[in-house]
């Protein structure tokens, strides 16, 4: 730094002496805010090579007199603004207007503060990099579960779908680096194809103005964000490796970041995960292993006035599906439910055999922005995604290598967005969206496609505004219009088409009839208007009150329209209907928050009223050559969901902290006046953390998680006849399993082994007491227990 300083003196000093004829020039100027062109008062101006100082007056004006002809170098400083250095060649008297950037945090979000919210009025919680690193060998759903009100719908132990307030799949928006993910999220066993290691911060937004991202965030929104890098010449990275005793596997992750003072930056990250068969306390789960390969790449240019960024990520997942979950008919299911321990549990193996899922997801985006003086910021984003899902069943012979489900979903969108911030206390966001989606049911599966070929076009326009009434009070409101058009091409069995009355309801969709089949071209158009209002009020003692109302609309997803076939992993025949209407939700959220290390809390009740709530429920039995199958149909009811999430943190003394949370939820099917299916049970967790900064940042914590039995459940149990034993048997698919309580231990320490880097060691134990339990929201709860004890070691190097 000093060298540069002297160099500057040398460079600018020399011509100064040579050309020192005219030394009574004056240099006047005005410092103004880039955003609203208002004068900046009290900015300091330093002429570096002359060592002269002054500050701006109430009009933002400054003045230097008796300057000599030649180059002058000035540095402009103001609190909350980026320091600006300018070189000016002074020949005559000069007046210059200099623009300063007032919103430093927008440019360089290097340090993410604990309470940086996406919006002041937003009801949200975040998981930070340290938590993400903790879950490096787990999934997005596992990591998000640390947040109150978030649970997960799982299929075995590796396929984990996040759930907010009991809602999941199409009712949750997952925004990955500002791209809305479309990865066939409609199925219960379709987990988001996203690798935790590629992100630095994840926000769970329960109630906020999320209209920018879509109108259908009825459950909530998950915002995955990358870091913003400082504009300086630097190269840094981190690598981690983890190992787990359960599943005998782990994860390797590495990332490297290069930044330049010119504003360019690049980041490359890759991770590989491999697990063999997992184990419950008493037996191995045959074919439950997984393999995941992920890579992401970012590069761009970042300056205040303009910039661009390109992002690409690829995720390749290979999930083994528990072999014994692949059952033939309802009698197999009854047998599985009634046997306390599954049969055919073998030893440990890394092999992933059929049934399995192989999913490849590509996501790419390019974003560019330009700021306009005294107006705002224009951002244009283009993105595309390809999701290819292949599912394999236990087939006969060489048919094992033919997927029974093979779907390719392509999505592309263009989103210009205008952010207007020149008005005092008032900001606006205006945006439009165009999106095209195409699903291809790839030929050659030798089975009826679960989801047919379809094309979907979306267009939307939205506007949101934020008004700061005073220092502590803000109001936020928004409105959005969505147009959606779906064109599908599906072959129905003629008998089903007629049985469902579709020949009466939709004669316009009918195409050719070929023997027992009919080709159809279902077309749907939807117009939706959604709205959002938010309010926040802060008090001096770190207390904040937040209120949010949202009107959301959700267009039925393809599985709700078109499902038609057997899902072997649960022995059920799933049927969607063309006459399903859109879902309309009214959401109310309130939150009282105190952000304080000594004693803080979030108390956040919510109420959602959803008209036309689409649910998949058992409705009867169908007979096939395989015997009887339970039929599950998509059904539409009016529903209400309400509950409360409470988080508490309390400092016991300077080394001990208590962190706890509780979530309670109640969902009701108002049409039938019965509970809603698959609502998470009341759960609470408590954690005591010991921290000692002196001892290598030693951190030891003990955690308890308790999930109470869900006593509010709809009873869809039924009887079926078993012809082999000539008996009526009871099929209990509704009764939730009992409550459970788990303990976990975690210890970590950081060693400064390198000059510029550090080494972090971590040791964790999950399910310390090796408790056998089952979870209501695991689709495999009929077959096996959840996982037993796991020892985990992680080594992380920062450099």
């Amino acid at each position, binding site marked *: 730094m000093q060298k540069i300083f002297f160099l500057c003196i040398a460079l600018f000093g020399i011509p100064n002496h040579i050309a020192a004829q005219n030394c009574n020039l004056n240099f006047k100027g005005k410092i103004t805010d880039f955003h609203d062109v208002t004068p900046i008062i009290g900015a300091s101006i330093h002429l570096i090579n002359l060592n002269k100082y002054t500050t701006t007056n109430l009009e933002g004006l400054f003045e230097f007199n008796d300057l000599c002809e030649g180059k002058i170098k000035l540095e402009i400083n103001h609190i909350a603004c980026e320091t600006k250095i300018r070189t000016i060649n002074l020949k005559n008297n000069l007046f210059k207007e200099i623009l300063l950037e007032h919103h430093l945090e927008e440019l360089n979000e290097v340090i993410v503060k604990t309470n940086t919210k996406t919006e002041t009025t937003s009801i949200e919680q975040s998981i930070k990099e340290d938590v993400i690193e903790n879950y490096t060998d787990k999934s997005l759903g596992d990591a998000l579960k640390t947040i109150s009100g978030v649970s997960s719908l799982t299929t075995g132990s590796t396929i984990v779908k996040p759930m907010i307030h009991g809602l999941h799949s199409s009712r949750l928006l997952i925004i990955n680096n500002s791209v809305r993910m479309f990865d066939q999220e409609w199925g219960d066993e379709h987990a988001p194809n996203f690798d935790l290691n590629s992100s630095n911060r994840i926000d769970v937004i329960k109630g906020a103005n999320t209209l920018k991202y879509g109108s259908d965030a009825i459950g909530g929104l998950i915002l995955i964000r990358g870091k913003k890098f400082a504009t300086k010449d630097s190269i840094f990275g981190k690598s981690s490796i983890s190992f787990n005793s359960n599943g005998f596997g782990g994860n390797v992750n590495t990332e490297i970041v290069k930044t330049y003072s010119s504003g360019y930056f690049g980041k490359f990250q890759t991770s590989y995960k491999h697990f063999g068969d997992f184990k419950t306390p008493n037996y191995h789960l045959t074919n439950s292993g997984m393999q995941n390969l992920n890579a992401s*790449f970012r590069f761009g240019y970042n300056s205040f006035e303009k910039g661009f960024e390109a992002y690409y990520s690829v995720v390749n997942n290979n999930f083994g599906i528990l072999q014994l979950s692949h059952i033939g008919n309802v009698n197999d299911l009854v047998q599985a439910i009634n046997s306390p321990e599954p049969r055919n549990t073998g030893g440990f193996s890394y092999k992933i055999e059929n049934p399995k899922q192989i999913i490849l997801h590509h996501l790419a985006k390019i974003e560019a922005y330009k700021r306009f003086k005294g107006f705002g910021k224009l951002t244009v984003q283009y993105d595309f995604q390809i999701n290819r899902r292949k599912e394999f069943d236990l087939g006969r012979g060489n048919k094992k290598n033919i997927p029974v489900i093979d779907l390719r979903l392509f999505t592309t969108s263009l989103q210009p967005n205008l952010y207007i911030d020149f008005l005092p206390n008032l900001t606006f966001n205006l945006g439009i969206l165009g999106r095209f989606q195409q699903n291809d049911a790839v030929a050659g599966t030798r089975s009826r496609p679960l989801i047919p070929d379809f094309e979907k076009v979306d267009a939307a326009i939205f506007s949101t505004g934020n008004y700061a009434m005073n220092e502590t009070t803000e109001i936020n409101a928004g409105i959005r219009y969505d147009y959606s058009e779906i064109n599908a091409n599906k072959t129905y*069995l003629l008998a089903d088409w007629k049985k469902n009355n579709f020949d009466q309801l939709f004669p316009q969709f009918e195409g050719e009839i*070929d023997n027992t089949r009919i080709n159809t071209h279902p077309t749907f158009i939807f117009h939706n208007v959604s709205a959002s209002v938010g309010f926040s009020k802060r008090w001096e003692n770190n207390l904040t009150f937040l209120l949010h109302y949202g009107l959301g609309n959700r267009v039925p997803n393809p599985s709700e329209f078109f499902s038609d076939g057997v899902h072997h992993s649960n022995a059920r025949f799933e049927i969607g209907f063309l006459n399903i209407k859109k879902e309309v939700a009214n959401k109310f959220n309130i939150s009282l928050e105190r952000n304080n290390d000594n004693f803080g809390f979030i108390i956040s009740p919510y109420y959602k009223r959803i008209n036309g709530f689409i649910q998949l429920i058992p409705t009867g039995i169908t007979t096939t050559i*395989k015997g009887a199958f339970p039929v599950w149909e998509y059904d539409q009811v009016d529903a209400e969901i309400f509950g409360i999430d409470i988080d508490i943190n309390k400092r016991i003394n300077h080394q001990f902290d208590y962190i706890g949370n509780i979530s309670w939820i109640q969902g009701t099917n108002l049409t039938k006046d019965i509970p809603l299916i698959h609502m998470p049970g009341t759960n609470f967790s408590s954690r005591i953390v010991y921290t000692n900064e002196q001892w290598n940042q030693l951190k030891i914590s003990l955690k308890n998680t308790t999930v109470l039995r869900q006593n509010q459940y709809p009873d869809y149990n039924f009887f079926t006849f078993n012809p082999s034993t000539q008996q009526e048997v009871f099929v209990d698919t509704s009764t939730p399993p009992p409550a459970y309580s788990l303990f976990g231990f975690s210890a970590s320490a950081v060693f400064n082994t390198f000059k510029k880097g550090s080494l972090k060691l971590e040791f964790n134990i999950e399910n310390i007491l090796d408790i056998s339990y089952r979870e209501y929201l695991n689709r495999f709860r009929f077959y096996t227990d959840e996982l037993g004890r796991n020892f985990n070691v992680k080594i992380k190097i920062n450099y």
Partner: protein
Amino acid sequence: MKITSTAKTIKFLAILFISALTFTACSEDDHDDHDDHDHEEEVITTLNYTLTNGGDIVTLSFKDLDGEGGNEGTYAISGSLKANTTYTGAIELLNETESPAEDITEEIKEEDDEHEFFFTSSVSGLTISKTDTDGNGNPLGLETSITSGAAGSGSITVVLKHEPTKPNDGTSASAGGSTDIEVTFNVTVE
């Protein structure tokens, strides 16, 4: 300046890299544009259970030509069994969504260690025993011997298990695995 040129090189490399990745990704993806509606499905549509005693042939058959969903399957029983008679039983499985029909029986034979048939009957005195074995010497059940007792009526249930535990105690319940077929015929013995 040196830094800018490095930045430009890196930028260029990055663009190359990303486009390379994207192109490989797309070309690997065998997206197809033709009619994707396979009319040939991998299903068992037909089960024929033929019972033979010299010239006396009784066939029990189940057909569900449009597979799962759609129309319900149909049963056809050609006649009644004679009392106190031993029949030789043979099972034939077909996939009639294909033309000519695909013989699934052959596939079962090829993977006989991964399959087993189970027979139960509610007709008093009627016994069914498996007369063939798989490569490991365990029962298979494509070939059977059926002995009837006194006159009466009831049902015969045929179950085919995929990947059962072999050997087992002879009941489908103990064998586990997944059920590929479970069909019940109503029969009379005269």
